[in-house]
Every structure is written in structure tokens, then in C-alpha cells.
């Protein structure tokens, strides 16, 4: 049986070990066949991981380029996207620990998210009146972002252009061509509301940018960020593992090769 062949790569070895622990768990516990369990215990996981040929092989340079052959869905102006890329890279820069936001695909992740339901606040309550300007003594009354008439897409466009305008004003250069120190100075001022934006506070935009950068770095790669699971690798987070039943009591730190939802679902 193919699944009995020895693991070929470190990743396979880790997964093999995990499968064995799952198998043992299933055997010992004799999972109740009558239980209302979906496919995962029986059909999916145990076999599919090793059925797929070549899925586990290390992504080479060429493939990496292919993964980057993405087009913008939300941003129409290339310059807005360049400003976005530069800003996210300052939030999560490339360093000796691993890739930064750009290599992780964060700008494309954000672009995709803004093109979808989240970008138009599709699940949010959107009835007026909007309380854009909140009383000073009621800072706890939600954030202006939540109470603003702008949707997330609007907010991103407005914020990125404000960032760029401010850069032009201060340094006579576009944000994405400003120096690292200049970019950091600008972002810090947005974070601390030292720049005025229309309709919302600058920190609202900054916080949204910060939150979505982290999302893009650490969400499942299916969303366009966390490329090649590099975000998870840096963080030693093993992704969508089926089971930790075999490890949960152990003292030793478990460094496991991450598993994506694509691996998990096996299609």
C-alpha cells in the first residue's frame, strides 16, 4: 500500500508520525461508528494525505513565481497597490526570521479580501444614522470606523492616498519611494492620529491595515497570503493538523511541519 511506504521528506515524516498517532488513537478509542461524524475521521484524513502525488514537494523558485502570477481584483490603480505593499512591509518586514509581508503575499491577500463581502462590510449592520463624530467623553462608544459610513474598501483607498499625500507634503516623494525611516514616521503618525483624515480618524485606517497585514501573513494560504505557509513556519504554528491526541501530554516542544487546508481536504 502506498501509505505504507517510508516517508521521503522531512515534512512527510512529520505527517507520517502524526498519522500514526491518529491511527493509534482511533484504534485505542474504537471510535463510535454510530456517532454523527462526518467524513474526516474515516474517509478523508487518514488516506488522502498520501494519495496525492507530488503535493508535498518543496515549492521551487519557478513555482513561486507562478503563485505570484496574480492580478488585482480590487485596486484599480497600480500606485495604490504599491503604497499598500510598502506599508504592509513596514508592518511586517522581511528579516533574518523570514519573509516580510510582500513575500508572504499580504498585499494580494488584502486586495482579494477587499473585493469580497468583507470589503463592503457585507455582514455588518449598515443602517443610518452614522455617528462619525463621537463625543470626546465617550471614547468607549465603539470606534469611528465601526460607526463610519465608509466601507472597508473606501477606507483603504482613502487611507492609502492620505498616506501618499502626506509623504508628498513632507518629503516630496511618493510613500513607496520614501526611505524606511520616512515610511515609519508616517505610519507612526497615522497610528497616533497625528494626521487628519476625512470621515474617520487616521488610527482607524492604521488599525485596519495592521489587522489585515497579520491576517494575510498568518491565515491559510488559500486566501492568497502566508505563501508556502512561510508565515506559519516562522511562528512554529503547524496549521490544520488533524489531531494532537498523541502529543498533548508531552513536555517536549513539538516542531511539526505545517498542514494547509488544501492538504487537509485533499483535493
Amino acid at each position, binding site marked *: 500500500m502506498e501509505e505504507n511506504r517510508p516517508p521521503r521528506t522531512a515534512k512527510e515524516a512529520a505527517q507520517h508520525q502524526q498519522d500514526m498517532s491518529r491511527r493509534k488513537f482511533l484504534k485505542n478509542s474504537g471510535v463510535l461508528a454510530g456517532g*454523527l461524524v462526518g467524513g*474526516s475521521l474515516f474517509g478523508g484524513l487518514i488516506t488522502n494525505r498520501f494519495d496525492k502525488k507530488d503535493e508535498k514537494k518543496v515549492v521551487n523558485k519557478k513555482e513561486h513565481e507562478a503563485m505570484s502570477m496574480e492580478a488585482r481584483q480590487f485596486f484599480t490603480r497600480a500606485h495604490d497597490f504599491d503604497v499598500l505593499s510598502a506599508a504592509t512591509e513596514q*508592518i511586517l518586514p522581511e528579516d533574518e526570521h523570514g519573509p516580510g509581508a510582500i513575500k508572504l503575499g499580504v498585499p494580494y491577500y488584502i486586495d482579494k479580501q477587499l473585493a469580497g463581502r468583507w470589503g463592503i462590510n457585507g455582514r455588518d449592520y449598515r443602517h443610518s444614522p452614522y*455617528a462619525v463624530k463621537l463625543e470626546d467623553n465617550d471614547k468607549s462608544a465603539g470606534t469611528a470606523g465601526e*460607526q463610519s459610513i465608509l466601507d472597508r474598501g473606501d477606507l483603504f483607498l482613502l487611507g492609502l492616498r492620505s498616506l501618499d499625500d502626506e509623504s508628498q507634503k513632507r518629503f516630496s516623494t511618493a510613500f513607496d519611494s520614501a526611505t524606511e525611516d520616512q515610511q*515609519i514616521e508616517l505610519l507612526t503618525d497615522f497610528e497616533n492620529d497625528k494626521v487628519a483624515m476625512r470621515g474617520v480618524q487616521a488610527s482607524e485606517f492604521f488599525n485596519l491595515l495592521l489587522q489585515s497585514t497579520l491576517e494575510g501573513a498568518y491565515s491559510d494560504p488559500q486566501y492568497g497570503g502566508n505563501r508556502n505557509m512561510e508565515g506559519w513556519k516562522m511562528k512554529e*504554528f503547524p496549521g490544520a493538523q488533524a*489531531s494532537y491526541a498523541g502529543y498533548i501530554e508531552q513536555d517536549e516542544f513539538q516542531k511539526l511541519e505545517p498542514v494547509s487546508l488544501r492538504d487537509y481536504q485533499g483535493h
Partner: protein
Amino acid sequence: MVKKLEKVDAVIVGSGWTGGIAAAELTKAGYKVVILERGQDKKHEDFVGTKDELRYSKRYDLMQDLSKTTMTSRNSINKEAIPVRNNSNARLGNHTGGAGNHWNGMAFRWLPYDFEIYSKTVERYGKDKIPKESTMQDWGITYDELEPYYDQYEKTAGISGEENPIGPPRSDKYPNPPMKDTPTIKLFSKATKELGYHPYRIPSANMSQNYENPDGEKINGCVYCAFCEEYGCDFGAKADPIGTVLSTASKTGNLEIRNSANVNRVSHDGKKATGLVYTDITTGQEFEQPADIVVLAGFVFTNTQLLLTSKIGQPYNPKTGQGIIGKNFTGHFNNLSTYIGARGFFEEKKFNNFMGTGGLGASIDDFSGDNEDHTNLDYLHGYEVHYSQLGTRPIAHNEVPEGTPRWGKEFKKQSLKYFNRNLFITAQSGFLPNKETYMDLDPTYKDALGNPLLRVTVTYSQQDRNRAKAGVARCEEIMKQMGADSMNVTEVKDDIEFDHKFYTDHFFGGAIMGADPATSAVNTYSQMWDMDNLFVVGGSSFPHNSNYNPTVTIGAFAYRAAEGMLTYLKEGGNVAEKLLEKNA
């Protein structure tokens, strides 16, 4: 035009634990039941492979769709309320199974003190100890009377636990042994023992082994995959309404769950409820479903909103203190009564933080309820300190020691370093009801169907802030004992106010229970005093909040309410009086 349907024995709003328990008990007895559920149909099959942090934790896939309805919020009766617009401020149940799909499964019982809080406080400390603004009252029932229903819920849900060394009496042991002990739980237990406290394992609705409940429903053993809170269980290993009570009810052939059915009001003739009026949100058509008994099990906010919009009972007025519907709103609030505590950073140790399950952990009860002598303390009620290993996920967890920037090079370095080198312990505390913390209808905002939104007003009192401070200090003490090299400790400011987050789903009040119709909306069988064929079930009937998670107590009261419904269907009248006579 409202289209009138054929009458059934019982119609229920909501398919969570409470609606599910009522449905199971009624259908087993042969009654025909319709559940109206606003959300989608969900099966365990939908939860296979839900290990997607973005979709479930950040985009709240299983939770209430706020574009359809929400609530408004303010922190004083003099302010205008603003709508809660986005799920990062509200995580409430929305589909078949309700919040029971995405709960953690921490399964505590409440304390005998909780049910008789007023009398026990007066007895031990005298009347003067009760703060002026407090509206705390007895529940009209004792722990001993509720105990058999606790036992029934625990067996239905297969709770895994161990005897709490200083816990309330139990008629039977937990149906399953506790979950596995992990190195970090051991660390917490050891530290708290050294400090002279009494740690015990958190009882959980995640199964420590395969289990079959008294209704014949099977629940699998948990594999500690760590995608529990906010997720449906991939393995059918977490007790939820779908796999237990709803399944039991469905097997009788007497249950119909009608999805995409948003209930707008209770129809009634002033004396009896006649049914529920709802909109089929796939077509926009409005229907009336008549029934002999009507059950509101749509959680605190919906239950209260429906009573107010249907004009049943007298709305509470915070200025006069008159009226009852909407009174005594309490909860576990993010910045005051839960999620606050001490985070320890460890230089030498690395933990498997990413493994776990929703209810895995240990707790101490030395400061819960009235377990500590409050004579010299500036608050009543207490807090429960726990460590839980529910599994850290990478988007949400970027903890760094205080003073580290929130972004950039240094942030990246530290957040990567500490992801598996930090532990958090929290003090979850009680919150006492007060005159100005209540619910009514919002004068401005409406839901997608034109119903007025519920307006929630939450005013923290100094007692609640004092209790929170004491809890945080205890967390700090324990974390130090656990050997953290440095700590981030929550600061509870003297002027801290409600932050408009309805995040915990631990909310109570609106239609509170009691022994006296003058001070309560329902009797201890959750039956409305004003309308005896209307049962309002769930946290809405709790006169105050304890320091524990609520679902086991909600489940116990749902079983008691179901007993009341069965009695009513046979005999009519006020079942509290009937059952009292019977048991006397």
C-alpha cells in the same frame, strides 16, 4: 398579509441548547413541535475541516449576521445608543444548534450562593453590605432543587470532569473522567496548590472518551485539535445540540426545524399566547404558526426584544424601578469580568500552545461566589481564576511583552519569539445587577425587517471594578508562582466603562425568574406569570451573573422548564404551584 398555518402543540424560537432541550423532551412525550430558526440548516457534516482561523474566528462564519439584526448599546441612561455594527463586537448564535455549535465547552455548575444571593448576603453580612444601586434578588429556587436537572444536563452532554474539592454537593459523579493533563495545566495546578488554593480540572463538554448519552446519542472522544472555540467540531467530539437533543427530537418524527424563519413577535389575546409570527427570509412572506404553548428560546436579546415588541409584561423603567421586562441585564464583559488577568512570558520554556481544546484547563474556586469572607472587601460575589489550553492560533495571537511596539521589526522578532512562550490566566468574575443596567427598545434603529432594535444600557458600578481588580491581582500572584520571567498584567482603571462588546455570549436578564410575580417575569419553570402558556427559557431568566460560564446552568433550567411545559400541556395553569403541591 400574514399567512396562518395549522396549529401544533408547541412552537419554539431558536434551535440552541434551550430550544433543543425543550424540543427533545416534548417530542419524546409525543407532542408535535416546530422550531423556528433564523439561521441556516447545519449538520455535523458542515463542520468537517473547519480549521480555518480567518473564516471562523475573524469573519465569524457561524455567528449572527448583523446585517439582518443587531442591538444598540450605551453606557448610561443619558446617552444615545449606537448600533453594534460588526461581529468583532458581537458573537451570537445563528444557525441550527445556535451558539452551542461554537462554544468552548467549559461546563461549570453555579454555586448554592448564586440562587439565594440576597438572603445569604443579608444572613452573613447584614443588609448594609448590599450596595445602594444593586438590584440583586433570590431566584426562588435553591441549588438542591436544581441539582437533579444539573445532573440530567451533564449526562445529556457527557461532561468530562473531576470532583471539585470545594465544590457544591453532587448526586452523582461526572459521566466522563477529566480530559488529559497537560504540562501547562500541571504548572498551574502546582502553583495554585503551593499557594494554598484548591485547583481542579475544568469540567468540559469536549469528551475525554467515547460516550453514549441516556438518549442513545453518541459523542466521540476529543483529539485536542484546538479548533473548538468559534468552530463546529470536526470530529463530533464536542457536545452540541445538533448531535444530542436535536437529534433525539428528530428521531421521534415529531420535530420540524424550519430554517430561515425570523420570528418577529408573539401573537396573543392578552391572556394566552396564540403562536409566533415570523418572516421566511428566503421569500419575504410572513407567517403565523399557532400552537398550544409558545417557547422563547432565542437567547437573552431576542427573548427580551420579542416580549417588548409583542407588548407582553410591563417594561422596566430605570428611573422609577417599576416594571420587569428588560430588568437586571448582566454579563461577562470583556474589559471587566473576563479576558482580564496576567500574561506571563517565559524565556527558558517553550510550550505546545497550539494544541488544546475548548474546555481544557484547571481552575480554582477559593474566591468564587461567597467562598471568600467578604466582610472586609469592597465588593460582593467573586471570581474564578483559570488557565485554559484552548489552542492558540496565529492571527489572533501576537502577544509581546509590554513596551514592545505593535508593528515593525522589533514586533516581528518578539511576537515570533513568544508565540509559544507565553501563558495567560484569567479571573472570570461575577457581575451584580444594578438599576441602570437593563434593556429596552431603541427609539431610532430598526432591523432589516423593520422591527425596533433592542437597546442595551450597561453601567459598571464601583463594586464590579473592585472585584475585577482583586481578580487581576490574584492572577498576577499565581503567574509569578508559575515562574514567568515577565508579565503583562491587565490594568483595571477606576473609571473603566462598558466597551460595547457583546463578545462572550454570557449574558443574562430581561425576563428574570423568581417566586413572586411582583419581582419576576417567570417562575422557576420559566413560565410567564402573565401568560401561562408562554415559556421564556435561557439566560434571560437569570437574575444575575455568576463567575462561571453559564451553559450548564442554562441547560439545567431548560430541563426544568421542559418539565413545566409537559405539566402545563397535561394540566394547564401555573405549574410552579401545581408541582409544589405535588412535591409537598
